[in-house]
Structure formats: C-alpha cells, structure tokens
C-alpha cells in the first residue's frame, strides 16, 4: 500500500484524513507545518504527498515548489477553496492534481491511486524506447531524455507525454486527457490539463511559446507532433 505524507495544519482534518486513509490500509504520516513536512519527507520517504494549500509559515505552494526542485514525488493539493486563483497557483507550482475540501476518503483514495497508477499501455510490438526528434521516451523504464540529457518530469507530466506520444498527430480534447491521464470521471477542471501542458512544454520544448512537440489545436485540444 502507498505511503502517504499528509501536511495539514487543521487538527481535525489531519486526524480525519489520517484515520480514513489508514483504515483503507495506507501508511500515513501527518505533519502540521510545511517545515515539519519537509523534514518528514526526508526520513519517511513517502510515495505521495497530500498537501494543504493554506499553512501557517511556509505555505503549500512554497512547499510544492521546494519538493519539485528535488524530486518527482507525486503531489496532490488539498484546498479549502475551490476558487480559481488558488487552483491555478497550485497547479503551476507543480501539483499533479487537487482535491477541494471537504472530500470523502473514497474520493481522496481514488485520486491517490490515479496519480500513482502507471500508464501500462505499452502495447504489443511497441519498442521500449521511442525517439521523437530530440526526445527519447522509454515506455518501460518510464524515463524521458532530451538530446541524451534525462528530464525530470512530474508524474502527471510524464503520463500526459506518454499518452500523447503513444498516438502521434492524434488530437485529444481536454476532456479526453482528463479522463485518461487524471482519470477524472466527471467534467473536472480543464485548466488542470492546460497547466500541466504548460509545465511539460517548459521542460521539453526548445521554445515553449512556439511548441514543436505538444501542439495546440484551437477549439479541439492537443496533439503530439507532427515534428
């Protein structure tokens, strides 16, 4: 079962979520502040970070940025506000998904599983390593390198790239990407896709403003290539 680190300042939420997830078999460590969370991160080595956005002292966005600088640990934002501003800030800082409080444990767990699930659609006869321009995508080792240099992609970015590059030149709508990459079964926030695309472009494109690999089709969605 996945090891989850929960950073949440409110005791009742912290205990509730911890209790709920532990009952479902997760190993949970909880921290009350961002600073304590970063310390616990080093020794607990979780598989996933559940991060409250509003924290005393160091806030969730800052914690998220710091974690992203060092690792590709999956991060899910827990936000008390579903307000557009917070969601976008959190996503831009590198979160893979977000959950609006209050949420049932089953929703939290489903999101955790979705973020942790690997894209195993290597498919028969497909080579383990595909080369697209300067990008080399290893579908088995789940690594991506550009011109021989390995890229540090967050889980959602990697999943998005794997999904798009599995069918080059095919256009996917935001809705389709939400369902396949994030596994959101209802009409969720399309800006989740846009923010992730923007982050991915920042890492793989030579010129993120005129993208070569992940292209936008106005009114329809995104596609990989043509190169």
């Amino acid at each position: 079962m996945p090891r989850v680190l929960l950073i949440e300042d409110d005791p009742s939420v912290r205990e509730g979520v911890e209790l709920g997830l532990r009952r479902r078999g997760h190993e949970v460590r909880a921290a009350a502040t961002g600073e304590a969370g970063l310390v616990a991160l080093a020794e607990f080595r979780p598989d996933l970070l559940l991060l409250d956005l509003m924290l005393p002292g160091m806030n969730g966005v800052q914690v998220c940025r710091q974690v992203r600088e060092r690792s590709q640990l999956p991060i899910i934002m827990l936000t008390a506000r579903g307000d557009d501003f917070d969601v976008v800030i959190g996503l831009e800082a590198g979160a893979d998904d977000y959950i609006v409080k209050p949420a049932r444990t089953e929703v939290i767990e489903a999101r955790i599983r979705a973020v942790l699930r690997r894209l195993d659609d290597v498919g028969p006869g497909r080579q383990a390593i595909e080369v697209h321009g300067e990008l080399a995508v290893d579908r088995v080792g789940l690594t991506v390198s550009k011109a021989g240099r390995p890229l540090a992609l967050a889980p959602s970015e990697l999943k998005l790239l794997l999904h798009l590059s599995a069918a080059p030149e095919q256009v996917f709508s935001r809705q389709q990407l939400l369902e396949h990459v994030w596994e959101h079964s209802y009409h969720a926030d399309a800006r989740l896709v846009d923010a992730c695309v923007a982050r991915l472009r920042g890492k793989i494109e030579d010129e993120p403003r005129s993208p070569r690999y992940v292209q936008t089709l106005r009114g329809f969605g995104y596609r990989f290539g043509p190169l």
Partner: protein
Amino acid sequence: MSPGRPRRVRAFGLRTRLLLAFLLVAAVSAGTTAALTYREARSALLQTAQDTAVTSFRDQVQQTGFALPVQGGEDLEQLLRDIARRGKPHPWVVFAEYGSMRASSGENPVSTVITPELRRRALANPHGSFERVVKDGVPYLTIAMPMVFKTSPDSLLPSGLVLYAVMRMTDEQVNVDALLMAARDGALPGLAVALIPGLMAARSVLRPVRELRRAARSMGSGRLDTRIPVRGSDELADLARTFNEAAGELERSVKELREAEARARRFASDVSHELRTPLAGMLAVTEVLDEDADALDADTARAVRLVSAETGKLAVLVEDLMEISRFDARAAELNADEVDVAEAIRKTLSNRHWTDDRVRTELPDGIRARLDPRRFDIVVANLVGNALRHGGAPVTVRLRTEARSPGTPVLITEIADSGPGIRPEVLPHVFDRFFKADAARTRSAGSGLGLAITQENVRLHDGTIRAGNLPGAGAVFTVEIPLHAEGAGG
C-alpha cells in the same frame, strides 16, 4: 445616450423656440413702435400741409370778389390764375365750375383729379371740403370751396359757383417716404441686433439644461458622483443645486446598499468557508462510521448512520453555498471550450448512472458549442436530477439548435418529466434560493440551491432558463444558450 440609438431630429428644438420667441417679441415691439411713429408723423406732416392749403385757399377765395352772375372768358381765368399764384404751401391749379361753365388757371379747363364725391360734398358743405387723391402714383390734395352769400349772421346761401384747388403733394410724399424708410431701417437692424441677445439668452438658459442632461446621462450610466457646477443664484442654479442634492442622496443610499450587500456576501462566504474545515475532517471519517455501524447495537448504529448521512448533506449544502457566494461576488469564471454537446450530455447522464430507461434522450450529433463543460454538466445533472426526484420518470432530454433572426443561433436543451407538473403559483419562484414548493416539506433531498445555481450557470453562458408545463402533464425546463461555435478558442 448610447451610440447605437439614433437621436431624433426635432424641427423646433428648445434653442430654436427660444430664439423665435425672442425675435417675435422684438419684431412686434419694433414693428409697433415704427408703425405708430410713422403714422403719427405722417398724419402730422400731411395735416399741416393740408390745413395750411385749405385755410389759404379759403382766404384767397373770400378775398376775391366775383361778380355774379359769373361771366366766363379771359377775366375769370385771370382771376383764377391770381388765386393760383398765391397758393400755399405750393402753387395750385384752380378750377371754377358754375353751371355748365368750366374755367381753370391751368391748361385744361376740367381737372381729372376731382372726384364726383368731392363735387357732391362741395355742394353740401358751404365751408368747403377737401380730399386726398392718388392718381398715377402722384398724391394730390383737392379742395372744394363753394361761393356763398351771407344773407344773415347765421344763414348762408350757395351761389352755385364752386372753386376747386388741386395741389400736388410731391414734397410731402417724399417726406413721408423718407419717414417710412427711416422706420423700416430702424426696425430691421433692431431685429438683427436682437438676434444676438436672443442667442445669448437662449444659450444661458440652455447651458444648464444641457449640463443637466449630460449629468443625468452620466448618473444613468453608473457614475453616481456626477455633480453640476452651480452658477449664480437664479432658478437654474436652484435646479442644479437640487439635482446635486438628489444625486448626493442617491449616491449615499446606493453606497450603503452596496456595503450591506458586500457584507452579506462576505458573511455567506466566510460562514461557508469556516464550515468547510470541520466538515473536511468529519466527511473523511464518515465511511469509518458507516462501516463500523453494523457492529454496534441498534440505537447507536442508527445514530451513527444519521450523523454520517447528515454530514454528507451538510457538505453538499456548504458546497452549494460557496458556489452561490462566488456567483454573488462575481468571482465565478467561465472556462469555455468548444464541445460536442450531445457527447457532453451523454457523459453527464452516464457518469450519474442515468443510463436506464428512466431517462430518454433525443440528442442529434454534430452540434458543437462553446461551453464551460463543468458548468454545463452541473446544469444538465441538476435539471435531470430534479426531474427524476420531483417530477417522475421517464425524463426526456432533448437537444436542438434554433436560428434567431436577430443575433446568433441558440442551443436549446429541454428537460421534460412525466410528473404532475409545476403548480402555476409556484412557477415564478422555482429559481428562488431555498424555495420550497411544498410548505409542509421542511427539507428536500438537495440543498435548495440547485436551481438557483443552475440559473447562475446558465446566465454565465449569457443564456436563459425557463420553467413551464407541458400541455399534457409534466414540467419542462428549457435552457437557451447562444451558440458561439465559430469563435472557438483553445
């Protein structure tokens, strides 16, 4: 005024009317003065000339002795020429008429100027009479003087001889003409000059009116701090002052209202937000309660399940309250995307497991519209959910587009149920917040905000939503959203 509305062109604006009234007054006063002056001067001028002439002629005639009965011939003509020479103020031509005898001091023995009217009056009035005659554009004064015998101090006897004097009044006419010219030349520039104060007066009256109009328009467009500069202390200044006071009052009340509204919104938002955190903790453990309830004794199990269920409802209510306060604070954004509408509706239905025969669909493929998929999902899910809960299966979801003669075509989504329909007295209130169609039902399954949120979501799409009843039975909700498929953005 909005630039699109054409301004009605009036033939007589306020300025024109003011100016015309001013000119009319000026014209009437100048004209009357000129006319009266002219008339008085003219009659004084003519009267003097004519009185002098009449008196002079009478004197001449009386001083001249006529031997009666009058003998025609050279003597008489000589006599007449003597009288004519002494004419005052101008020389005149003297005619004598006696029976059938005619004589004159001029070339013709009979004058063409003397009228039969004067002849008749000459016989009737022994003191003589006169008449002004205009012939061929030349004015003449004609005087008739009958010769009489004084039989006693108060009795006169006509002799039958009548003397006529005909005098051209050319000089007087020139003077009168000059007078007319002077009157006209005085009045016309007066009128022209009156135009300037007229314009100025019109301007001074119209400027405050125009300022008032501008200020009223500015107030109407929402700038409540609009004020008019107060000049002077006349009625127009009073008007400006009154306007300013009214504007101040209005601004103050609007400000108070807005503050109250903002406070109410902030309160709702704060309450929802504060409720959220404890709910987050509670909701995370409700499953624990539900799972363990089976192992508890009956009463405790009921209590635990009740708490769990109510926590869920509370979470929905708080969520809806947050959403409503976002709409009220205008913080709700439209994240529009071009979507296949039929596909979107199908997904909404299947995600909520409304795939059995309780929900029928008539969804033509290929309709693409710019929508916020999340909000449209909420709209459809809410209406179908309501129809199933309050109306009755089967529920029909119908999609179509309709061209509107002015403006863009619209996307029409109809959700009809097979229930008893909505009571007419309830219809206007179905979109009200927390409105309960059935007063006895204290709490519905939803938050009571569902339709209000649905309406806000439709409005955010610049659309409209209507509730009504089908001719047979059953309620129908119609959502109309402008179809902006062409300007699709990514």
